[in-house]
Structures are given as C-alpha cells and as structure tokens.
C-alpha cells in the first residue's frame, strides 16, 4: 500500500513537472511533436529508474557510511552525467533502433533537473531501496504523462489562432498552468 501510494503520488499528485516544476526545459522544448515527446518521456523514465538505483547505492554504501553528506551534490551529478553517457553508449551498441528512438534525447537528460531532484529527494525522504525504485519509475511516468499530454495539446494548438506573442513557450506555460490546476484535484488522495 505504501508503495502504491508513492507510485500514484509521483504520477498524479506530486507530478514532477506540474507540481515541482522540474524538467521544464525539456517539457517545453521537446513537446512540440508527440512522437519525440513519447521518446523523451520513455528516456527520462528509463534514466530515472536507473538513477534511483545507483544513487541509492552511492548514498547508502559510500556517502552515509563515510559521513560525506556534503559530497552529495557533486557525486550525484557526476554519477548521473556518467550514467547517461554510459547508457547512451550501451544502447547504441545493443540496439540501434532504440538508439534512434531514445538515444538522441539522452544528452538532454544530463541537465534535466528532474533526474537530479529524484536522487536528492529519495535521499531526503529516506526511501529504502524498493521505495526508491518505485519513486523513480513513478516520477518518470509522471513526467512522461505530462509531456505527452502537452505535446498532443501543442500539436493541436499549432493549428489554432494563438496570439503571436503567446505562441511557443507562453501558451505552453499557460496550458501547463491549467493542467496543474486539473491535477490539483488529486490532492489529498493519498493518506
């Protein structure tokens, strides 16, 4: 039940994009076409799941035993950056089609704050190993949901008479605002 709560909360209630404002850059940048949004979402989910595992290991096997909490920021970001790079290499070697679909988005993920936030948050909330993974997968799916919805909406808005000045990021942010409003309806669902 606890795990389900973490999972649902990460997708709907505390959606990384719509509640914590994380990953706004890719959320705005890669949401122009739905196909790329899907790939981006999946890539983020994938990296988030791995990050959750690796950062837990770093945190619980190195940082906490040696009382190196002040190295958290540096080590997490280094781990994420190298991880993304390794994953990219790995995918390219193993499955070229998958690389075509996901790979080109991987470098973008390095500076996606949602990944880094995930590592920090899992450590701050003192999640155990399984909880971390669930949190990672859930957050990734939450991001995916948000970016896919946004992409579909923006594709439709491409054919709308949006005022010139609002075109692009402006209208996307307002849509995100209304989506955040709608997602508020799920508040209080997890006790």
């Amino acid at each position: 039940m606890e795990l389900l709560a973490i999972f649902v909360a990460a997708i709907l209630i505390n959606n990384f994009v719509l509640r914590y404002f994380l990953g706004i850059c890719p959320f705005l940048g890669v949401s122009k076409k739905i196909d790329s949004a899907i790939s981006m979402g999946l890539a983020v989910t994938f990296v988030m799941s791995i990050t959750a595992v690796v950062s837990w290991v770093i945190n619980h096997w190195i940082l906490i035993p040696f009382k190196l909490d002040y190295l958290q920021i540096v080590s997490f970001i280094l781990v994420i950056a190298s991880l993304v790079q390794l994953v990219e290499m790995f995918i390219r070697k193993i499955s070229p089609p998958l690389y075509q679909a996901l790979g080109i988005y991987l470098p973008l993920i390095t500076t996606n704050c949602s990944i880094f936030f995930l590592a920090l948050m899992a450590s701050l909330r003192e999640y155990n190993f399984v909880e971390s993974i669930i949190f990672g997968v859930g957050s990734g799916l939450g991001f995916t949901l948000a970016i896919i919805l946004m992409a579909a909406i923006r594709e439709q808005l491409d054919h709308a008479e949006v005022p010139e000045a609002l075109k692009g990021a402006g209208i996307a942010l307002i849509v995100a605002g209304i989506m955040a409003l709608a997602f508020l309806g799920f508040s209080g669902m997890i006790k």
Partner: protein
Amino acid sequence: MSTKTIGQEFIKGLWDENPVFRQLLGLCPTLAVTNAVINGFAMGMATTFVLIFSSLVVSSIKKLIPSQVRIASYIVIIASFVTVADRFLAAFFPPISKSLGPYVPLIVVNCIILGRQEAFSSKNTVGRSVTDALGMSAGFVLAMLVLSAIREILGAGTFFGYQVMGPWFKPWIIMILPPGAFITLGILLAIALQIERRTKSRK
C-alpha cells in the same frame, strides 16, 4: 571572440539576452521558488554566486581542459560551488534554506550556468566572463524579482513579507501555488515577446 565593450557585456544580460525571458533558461527555479520575494531573491543570489565563481574558475583554466572532458569538468566545478552555497545557506540562514529546500542543489543543473560556461566563459577572458556572469545573474535576479513580486503581492498581499494590500484585498492563493506560477510566467513571457516585437517593428 566578443566585440562588445565590457558595459555591453553586462547590459545584454538584463534584457537582450535575459536568461529567463529571452532565452527561456533556468525556468525550473524561476517557477519553483518565486512564491515569495525573499525566496526568489535568495535563490537569485545563490545562483549569482555560483555563476560568477564558476565563470571565474572556468575562464581561468579553460586552456588546461581538453574539450572532450570540458562538460564533466564544468559540472564538477559548478557542483562544488553549489555545495558551498547550499552549506552556507544551511549554516547561516536556516529558514531560507528550509523554504528553498532541494532547489538550491538544483542550481547545478540550471542550464543558465552550464550554458554560460559552454557558450561564453570557455572562450573569453576572465574579466569578460565575470562581467558576463554578472550581467546574466542580474538578469536572472531581475526576472526572479518580477515574478516573485507579482506572485507574492497577488497571492498573499505582501511584498518581502510586508503587507502592501489593504484589508479589502482577498489574496489569490492560486498565485503561490503551481498553476499560478505557470500562468504568470506564461503571461510575462508573452509580454516580453510583445515588447520585443514592438521595438523590432519600430526599427
């Protein structure tokens, strides 16, 4: 590389290349911590600190770093300064540190900072880089202040915690919640674009 004067280097960050309004960089913290002016200001200052010192270090050692590892090196340098900022706030301003929460460490992945290193500091002299960093930070702080002022005044009726609206005013709580942040920034971006379009068409 750059042909601008030092002054222009500074000024451009305020409007022409304003990181938030014009380049859409660093939107995550811009949205997340601008529910109160004090938070926005503190965040802006922390970012300024990191940006300036990273630019300083990167531009001074740029020649030593092979281009293949430059991103990695920049990240380590930035992360180190972010840690300093984070620890400093936690040690000396615990309430602010608490309300900013995990968003201070997130400065690491603020694209403004890495972007400036990559685009500017790695190619320019120390002096120019620091000026550029100052300008960019000023632009960032400006954006944070504008956004947080609107949100705090409408959302709580206060400014820097001081009551500015009369008792008749019912605070719009939505403004300090996520939807308000998105919508306000969306409208601000539109206004910025409109101003730009106007000045352009006048030219």
